[in-house]
């Protein structure tokens, strides 16, 4: 798909002819799109549209899912992610936030320090600095500063999701993938996280999969609409919502006329 009305810039992520199959089932059909540096790129669409599969293909999580087959090209900073021989180095550059908060059964401190430790940072003072910085940026520091040693899995759902974000930030990613992060989070926390994401945009590129159309409208610079494995529409978010769209299906979805 060509976006003729956009000025050409260098892309952070360039996807070309991406097809994802699970056995016989096609989850994503021949998707091509690009994500630009320091933008929030929204992906909307109903369930089973291939949104999550798309995210999994980017950091090559498909390699641990049995039966998931990916073809096509995904270039990160101009380099095909499939050609990275060290998949772990690739994944360390990409932060992922899952739909349900995953507070690992470690202390809050260890949750955030896990990624730096995986990279070989073991100096306590350095770790403390990283943990505080990431927790502050995830707007969680004030709530947990006095109990960093307690279990991360005991935090409330909203806190755990911010802990997950802090953990992703500790990877110092340049690409952050969020998969319906607000599904198990109360509205107030959702708004706080949205504010965090707006700030984070200055430093990294964010791909935000959401089934809340209004969330995409609030946050995303550009938005893609996936439907049953097809990329129906991609463009400036405001264009999508001001009905300057090419496809009837998009309008139907945005206005809730579906089924």
């Amino acid at each position, binding site marked *: 798909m060509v976006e003729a009305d956009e000025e050409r810039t260098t892309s952070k992520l360039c996807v070309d002819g991406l097809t994802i199959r699970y056995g016989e089932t096609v989850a994503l059909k021949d998707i091509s799109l690009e994500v630009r540096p320091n933008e929030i790129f929204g992906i909307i669409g109903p369930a089973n549209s291939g949104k999550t599969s798309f995210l999994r293909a980017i950091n090559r999580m498909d390699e641990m899912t049995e039966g998931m087959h990916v073809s096509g090209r995904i270039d990160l900073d101009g380099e095909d992610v499939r050609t990275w021989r060290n998949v772990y180095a690739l994944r*360390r550059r990409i932060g992922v936030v899952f739909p349900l908060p995953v507070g690992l*059964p470690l202390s809050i401190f260890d949750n955030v320090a896990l990624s730096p430790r995986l990279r070989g940072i073991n100096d306590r003072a350095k770790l403390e600095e990283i943990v505080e910085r990431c927790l502050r940026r995830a707007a969680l520091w004030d709530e947990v500063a006095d109990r960093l040693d307690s279990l991360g899995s005991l935090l409330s759902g909203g806190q755990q999701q911010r802990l997950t974000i802090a953990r992703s930030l500790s990877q110092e990613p340049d690409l952050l993938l969020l998969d319906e992060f607000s599904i198990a989070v109360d509205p107030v926390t959702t708004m706080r996280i949205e504010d965090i994401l707006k700030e984070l945009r200055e430093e990294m590129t964010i791909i935000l999969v959401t089934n809340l159309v209004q969330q995409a409208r609030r946050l995303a610079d550009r938005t893609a609409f996936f439907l049953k494995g097809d990329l129906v529409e991609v463009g400036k978010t405001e264009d999508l919502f001001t009905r300057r769209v090419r496809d009837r299906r998009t309008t139907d979805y945005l206005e809730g006329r579906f089924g």
Partner: protein
Amino acid sequence: MASPGGDRSGPDHLGREWWWDKIAQVLLFGGGISAIVFIIAIFVFIAQQGLGYALVDLDLATYFTSPEWRPTSEPEPVFGALALIVGTASVTGLAMLVSVPFSIGAAIFIGEFATGRTREILKVLVELLAAIPSVVWGFIGLMVMSPLLMDVFDVSVGVSVLNAGLILGLMAAPIMTTIAEDALKAVPDGFREAAEAMGATRWQVIRQVVLPSAKNGLVAAVLLGVGRGFGETMAVLMASGHSINMPTSPLDQVRALTATIAAELGETARGSDHYRVLFSIGILLFLVTFIINLLADMFVRGKKTAR
């Protein structure tokens, strides 16, 4: 014309379902409580036979500190269980040294690395291994392990702490593997996925995330293995040499508490001192296995409340 709801009776009529429900409740209650009843009955029996003697007539100081076990010497029999306790402890300890690394390793392989058919076949084999009767293990100790040890270490007797420890280790490993694998399986996949998404290698995922979260279950697995080794009788009787001895090397013969009861109880006069002191050994075994199981249970519970 059949009514769709079957037996539609008034509020005071107790239908067949009601009676079936009552009968099922009673039967299930009986089944459930029988385990407790049996445990208590066994404990009462052993205590009645040996506890009074152990607390009143038995010289506990000698019992726990003397390696002299001469229950039939006249006129003064000596009941020193130290050598037996040391025998059991050394065999069990060695068995754990052998089986813990193997079973945890096997559990990690089955639970984290093996997939599909390999995994299923391995699980079945491990469970099959757990079903081998202990006398068969004793037979292997006597007929296979013993000549092997005589060759390797150039000793004249092949039955020893080492032999019994190895055999017991092999016996305890399948149970520990099965329970440890269950503990690993109880770790939510989301944890693994989150760690892998962060760029953790397979080993880092296991080391940093899976093992810490399965810790309690793993400890419980080891404790149950210890309990198994502690209570094992026949294989130890056959592979340990069954001679009263304070071992100074793994190649020494020892005698275990359990094997002593098995070998001697048939030859004692009912109600004699010897008979009663064997029951006191039974009490000791009962207490130790009880404590081990209790600890294992506490660790398993700890795992549940930690979430």
